[in-house]
């Protein structure tokens, strides 16, 4: 069914169709609409779940950890300070191989306190062992929820997945979204039935202390499993297309890269603006394109190398910064192309704290890309 709805509602409706047994969250702007929506669905009896109103995000993440360990499908959501407060549990959830799915509605980090969008919150947790998907629009945000559960709960994976969507731009922005029929979701997403869980009939211990004799191997296993998601995700998106009839999600998206001389690499809703600008510049005869990262963790290095193999000039647009170093995607891209000559790769940082990224910003980046190679050039700084 097609509806003109905000991203938060699209996500909430998608979550509802996945029927999590336990939902727990704590209010924070701009994430709040998602869980308010779910609370209403539970209150109306449309969704038969336990909705646990907690006293903090740390506890929200802990509640879903406990519930998924008993074998219930779970959901939580947060933003910014909430996500960072959760971060201890976020790392723990991945280490314990708990297939939690959450939405991160991306927002800047304090200080200064700022409720507007950038990607600094989720980027700060890229090393946690969670799969991270970044949505470009509301439709994709909803579709990624289905795919997130499918991946997280796959017995070959059993890793948590974070669906990131830009605060306000998507969470509060209205778009036409196709919310699928329940039978299609049932067809796509098998019931969650983990082989290992807290069960008095078969008592097991979870969350053990592992010393130097074991820790390295356990972390290596997790690392390998997260990387292996690179092979599971394309199958999941193919199956998604088969059932739902549309391309959505995946690892990366190439946009007009065939003969491109310049490309921007970025993630999230800004890619919509970049696509429009690419179209305008293409109409003027400029050979430009975009590589959109949909799955940021695991990092789809091979696909990125292939997609950009023939592009000599690459600008990475980060809406986050590793303070004192560079943008996070830029650093990953440089590492991927390390030892491969004949490329100019420049890093640009823009849009922090909700500063608009307009077509002019994108044009400015293409313009600067023709100039000297830079690693952490802020775009749009006022004097």
């Amino acid at each position: 069914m097609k509806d003109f709805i905000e991203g938060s509602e699209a996500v909430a409706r998608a979550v509802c169709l996945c029927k999590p047994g336990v939902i727990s969250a704590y209010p924070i702007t701009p994430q709040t609409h998602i869980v308010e929506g779910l609370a209403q669905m539970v209150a109306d009896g449309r969704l038969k779940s336990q909705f646990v109103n907690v006293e903090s995000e740390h506890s929200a993440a802990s509640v879903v950890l406990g519930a998924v360990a008993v074998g219930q499908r779970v959901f939580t959501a947060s933003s910014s300070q909430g996500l960072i407060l959760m971060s201890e549990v976020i790392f723990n959830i991945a280490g314990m191989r708990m297939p939690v799915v959450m939405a991160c509605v991306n927002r800047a980090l304090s200080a200064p306190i700022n409720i507007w969008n950038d990607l600094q919150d989720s980027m700060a947790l890229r090393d946690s062992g969670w799969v991270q998907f970044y949505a470009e629009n509301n439709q994709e945000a909803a579709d990624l929820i289905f795919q997130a559960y499918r991946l997280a709960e796959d017995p070959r994976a059993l890793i948590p997945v974070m669906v990131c969507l830009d605060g306000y731009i998507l969470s509060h922005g209205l778009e036409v979204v196709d919310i699928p029929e329940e039978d299609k979701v049932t067809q796509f997403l098998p019931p969650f039935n983990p082989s290992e869980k807290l069960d008095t009939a078969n008592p097991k211990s979870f969350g053990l202390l592992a010393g130097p004799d074991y820790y390295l191997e356990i972390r290596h296993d997790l690392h390998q499993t997260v990387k292996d998601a690179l092979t599971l995700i394309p199958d999941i998106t193919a199956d998604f297309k088969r059932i739902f009839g549309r391309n959505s999600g995946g690892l990366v998206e190439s946009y007009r890269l065939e003969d491109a001389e310049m490309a921007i690499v970025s993630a999230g809703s800004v890619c919509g603006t970049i696509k429009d600008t690419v179209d305008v510049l293409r109409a003027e005869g400029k050979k430009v394109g975009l590589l959109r990262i949909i799955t940021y963790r695991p990092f789809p290095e091979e696909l990125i190398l292939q997609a950009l193999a023939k592009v000599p000039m690459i600008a990475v647009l980060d809406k986050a910064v590793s303070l004192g170093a560079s943008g996070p995607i830029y650093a990953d891209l440089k590492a991927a192309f390390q030892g491969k000559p004949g490329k100019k790769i420049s890093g640009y940082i823009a849009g922090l704290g909700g500063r608009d990224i307009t077509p002019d910003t994108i044009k400015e980046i293409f313009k600067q890309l023709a100039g000297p190679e830079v690693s952490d050039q802020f775009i749009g700084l006022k004097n």
Partner: protein
Amino acid sequence: MPEHLLSPGHTACAGCGQSLAARLVLDAAGPNTIIVNNTGCLEVFSTTYPDTAWEVPFIHSLFENAAAVASGVEAALRQSGKLAEVRVISQAGDGGTADIGLQALSGMWERGHDILSVCYDNEAYMNTGIQRSGLTPTYTSTSTSPAGQSSTGNPRPKKNIVEIAVAHGIPYVATASAGFPLDLQKKVKKAMAIRGPKFLHVHVPCPLGWRHEPEQTYQIARLAVETGLFPMIEFENGKISGRYLIVKPKPVEDYLKPQGRFRHLFKPAAEAALKEIQELANRNIERYGLLKTAGS
């Protein structure tokens, strides 16, 4: 079924009051129990990968979130209709309960989850090397409140976590001690028969941190109660409903003297401090009506 649900062979110190109490609690709770444990000595000595001492489902996540993880476990059991037969215990040390874990615990109590929370109170952060906690008693020497030329140890009184629990309006709150095993198990059974949040605060000597001989654990636990320093009391629906009555309170010195953590109090200069501790015991006895009088 194994003889005990917390198996021997774990790595607790000899004479560990916490390992004794945890075994008693779980044996009383029975096999249909899921244990959620904060980080601390108990979790560390019982679950060194690839071994576990737990004969029931056990989960440890972090230092401060057992109450929230347990809330999720309980919610999941409720969702699957299993809460009638499977019970949940959330347990932690004094630090995990009354300091860093208090927020999550308060949330769990306030939300009314059907969970028994147990605090194994050894009166310091033992797992990390005997640092003071909010439940460290007045004038205890710990590694972060050491006695010295210008210090008589921990300057602050023990936080009243029991009354904090009672203030949440939960149906059952009780204290117990490793020195009174039958009483402890009776309280666990009583708590498990009540639906909703329950809190059990168990005093557990730690030979390593308290610096007493391992074979003194039981005796020291009893002395804490018999001096009035650790009142054994029960609250049902906000009202005191049970107390361990003392015929003739023992002087606090009897309890303090065998413990290295109070050694500095037995110097002439510390006489006033000793007196203060006696007054704390007296106040407990008065506040909770612990004295056995003719007819009581």
